[in-house]
């Protein structure tokens, strides 16, 4: 069992999807056990593949898929350390989430279909990270989007859920179109979809700078759509209409990370386009602030986590734009685990609160939900970047690469971002778990059953201890040397005083400040802000009016344009094209039918004359 078998990971999940979707209702557990077995198998296989890759280096495997003229498209996978990191994250979190769902989704009328969709998503995501070819990549990218759409709209009877699914799909589609155009621009310039060939040509200077800039910008727009970067972030909070485990897996840990993964995968191209990297970093930083600011004012526990996810994805983009590819992937990995943990914890809370998600009704849950409280504290402190949890190491790495390649101003901005993070974590923890219960449901909440707390506990370990991966121990040289992006060498993790002390001190003090602030006021927004700058609060409550802008655009630009197109369709295509053709046919038929005399002799005469004309043509021309 080596890395050439890596294709089995998506393959078993695809098989599980097909079987569960087709035969689920006759299987034990309506197919859920089969789906979990498949993702469990994938998780076990992951260790074999990883052992092989770590021991023998990366490998590429492909076979011809189809020929089209001179072009041979190959179906292949590239098993390298970047793919390994993602494989581990996806399979581990998928496994935990599916086990959690077993209990969480119990009694749902479409229980089996839910697990089939999870298998589909896992298969697509695993195939996506293995793709070595932009065409395969794009197909799986769309499949992942499809899985996300179906799972957001899983409870489609609820209007808000189906609306959210459509919003997510359409918003990411905008990015996907850009990505497709970017891929085609690259294909036009290189004549191939193979990543390795494209990179080789780019490094050899065979692709013009304009093409590189254009394609990377387009690819980044695709990544921004999937990773919910400003201005495409609006779909992610609405996506929380899906079941909470779905949010944990897709809208926190894996799918939204696909954009970050895409940029990291295309790193050899992006490093050749410094201007685009500036854009990536700028968008990332903007997203950090927007996400964190909006997370401060939300009252729905899942939406707080969603905006936090947006903000953290902004951190990853910021790192990518600052040449910190390894840091971005490490933050992706750490974030995937602790954010999945937060969402699963939120699922337990919502379960205990009888489907109430408003944190204004919570409070004092610490004693009622002790296990969830521990999980939330660990994951929340990791999110805030408190030593020695995983988030601290990854965020430090991100901030260090910003300081290293972007300078002090950007670094300071990043620090402010992490301060905001600590603040909203403090707010979340305080309002949910501390203080007095603010509703009957909160007073009577009971800890989730073991089937749900077990996966939560299993995720605690990586959320807390993943930071150890950053350090060197034994033969292992630390994550900075494990995952190396050419043309950069290995960069082992160090405790840089310039990053370590300010970030830790600021995060810690901001966290404590937030706790005390909320303890004093007990409200959902700091009284200070409410008194001094009410307009900011209003703006944040309205999500910075972005949804309004988009709605206006749809109403006044898209719909007007659609009406014009519809008019054209009606007048030109339908009336002048289709109907006129029909009328002409009808009219000519009315005239020509008189040839049909019904008399054999007439027909025979026609045949004879026609045959003679043909013979005449042949002998005169031939």
């Amino acid at each position, binding site marked *: 069992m080596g890395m050439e078998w890596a294709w089995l990971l998506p393959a078993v999940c695809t098989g599980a999807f097909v079987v569960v979707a087709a035969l689920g209702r006759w299987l034990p557990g309506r197919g859920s056990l089969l789906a979990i077995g498949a993702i469990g198998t994938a998780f076990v296989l992951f260790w074999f593949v990883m052992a092989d890759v770590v021991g023998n280096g990366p490998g590429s495997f492909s076979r011809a898929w189809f020929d089209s003229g001179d072009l041979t498209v190959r179906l292949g996978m590239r098993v390298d350390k970047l793919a390994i990191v993602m494989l581990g994250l996806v399979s581990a979190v998928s496994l935990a989430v599916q086990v959690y769902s077993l209990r969480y989704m119990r009694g749902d009328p479409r229980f089996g279909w839910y697990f089939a969709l999870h298998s589909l998503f896992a298969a697509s995501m695993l195939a996506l990270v293995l793709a070595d070819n932009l065409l395969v990549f794009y197909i799986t990218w769309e499949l992942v989007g499809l899985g996300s759409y179906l799972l957001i709209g899983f409870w489609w009877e609820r209007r808000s859920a189906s609306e959210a699914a459509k919003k997510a799909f359409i918003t990411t589609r905008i990015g996907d179109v850009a990505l497709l155009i970017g891929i085609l621009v690259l294909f036009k310039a290189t004549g191939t979809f193979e990543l390795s060939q494209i990179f080789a040509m780019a490094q050899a200077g065979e692709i013009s700078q304009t093409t590189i800039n254009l394609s990377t910008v387009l690819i980044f727009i695709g990544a921004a759509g999937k990773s919910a970067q400003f201005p495409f972030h609006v779909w992610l909070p609405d996506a929380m209409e899906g079941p909470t485990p779905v949010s944990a897996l897709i809208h926190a840990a894996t799918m939204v990370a696909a954009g970050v993964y895409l940029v990291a995968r295309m790193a050899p191209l992006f490093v050749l386009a410094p201007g685009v990297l500036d854009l990536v970093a700028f968008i990332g930083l903007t997203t950090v602030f927007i996400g964190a600011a909006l997370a401060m004012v939300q009252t729905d526990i899942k939406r707080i986590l969603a905006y936090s996810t947006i903000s953290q994805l902004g951190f990853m983009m910021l790192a990518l734009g600052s040449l910190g590819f390894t840091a971005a992937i490490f933050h992706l990995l750490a974030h995937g685990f602790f954010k999945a943990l937060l969402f699963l914890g939120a699922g337990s809370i919502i379960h205990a609160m009888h489907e109430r998600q408003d944190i204004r009704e919570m409070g004092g849950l610490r004693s009622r939900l002790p296990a969830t409280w521990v999980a939330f504290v660990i994951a929340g402190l990791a999110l805030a970047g408190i030593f020695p949890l995983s988030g601290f190491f990854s965020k430090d790495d991100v901030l260090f690469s910003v300081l290293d390649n972007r300078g002090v101003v950007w670094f300071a901005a990043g620090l402010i971002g992490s301060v905001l993070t600590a603040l909203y974590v403090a707010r979340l923890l305080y309002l949910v778990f501390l203080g007095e219960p603010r509703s009957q449901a909160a007073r009577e909440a009971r800890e989730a059953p073991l089937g749900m707390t077990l996966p939560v506990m299993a995720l605690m370990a990586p959320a807390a201890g993943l930071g150890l991966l950053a350090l060197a121990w034994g033969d292992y040289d630390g994550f900075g040397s494990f995952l190396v992006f050419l043309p950069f060498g290995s960069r082992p993790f160090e405790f840089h005083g310039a990053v370590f002390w300010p970030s830790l001190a600021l995060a810690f003090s901001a966290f404590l400040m937030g706790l005390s602030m909320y303890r004093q006021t007990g409200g959902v927004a700091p009284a200070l802000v409410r008194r001094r700058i009410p307009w900011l609060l209003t703006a944040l409550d309205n999500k910075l009016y972005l949804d309004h802008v988009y709605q206006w655009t749809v109403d006044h630009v898209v719909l007007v344009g659609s009406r014009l197109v519809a008019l054209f369709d009606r007048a030109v295509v339908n009336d002048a094209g289709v109907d006129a053709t029909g009328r002409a046919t009808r009219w000519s038929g009315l005239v020509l*039918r008189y040839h*049909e005399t*019904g*008399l*054999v*002799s007439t027909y*025979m*005469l026609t045949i*004879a004359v026609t045959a003679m004309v043909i013979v005449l043509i042949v002998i005169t021309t031939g």
Partner: protein
Amino acid sequence: MIELEYVLFLSAVLFSLGLFGVLARRNAVMILLAIELMLNAVNINLVAFTVYLSPDLLVGIIFAIFIITVAAAELALALAIVLRLYRTRSSVNVDEVNLMRW
């Protein structure tokens, strides 16, 4: 010596006569007779080509045999149809059978 062209001329004359007969008659049986004439013209051509141009292959003669076979089958069916027609309409004139028109 009989030249190939002589035979072809004969065949052309017979074929044209048959065509004229098919077009000029209204009695179904007469049309069938004219068709037989045309078929025979074709057969003469085939035989002539085989004998004069590729005597080893015999394809034309074998084709002629098959054509005679098919002509016999066709005539049998056609006459059956004519009988049927006569029984229902008391006439075998094709210009009285014109239901299949506009």
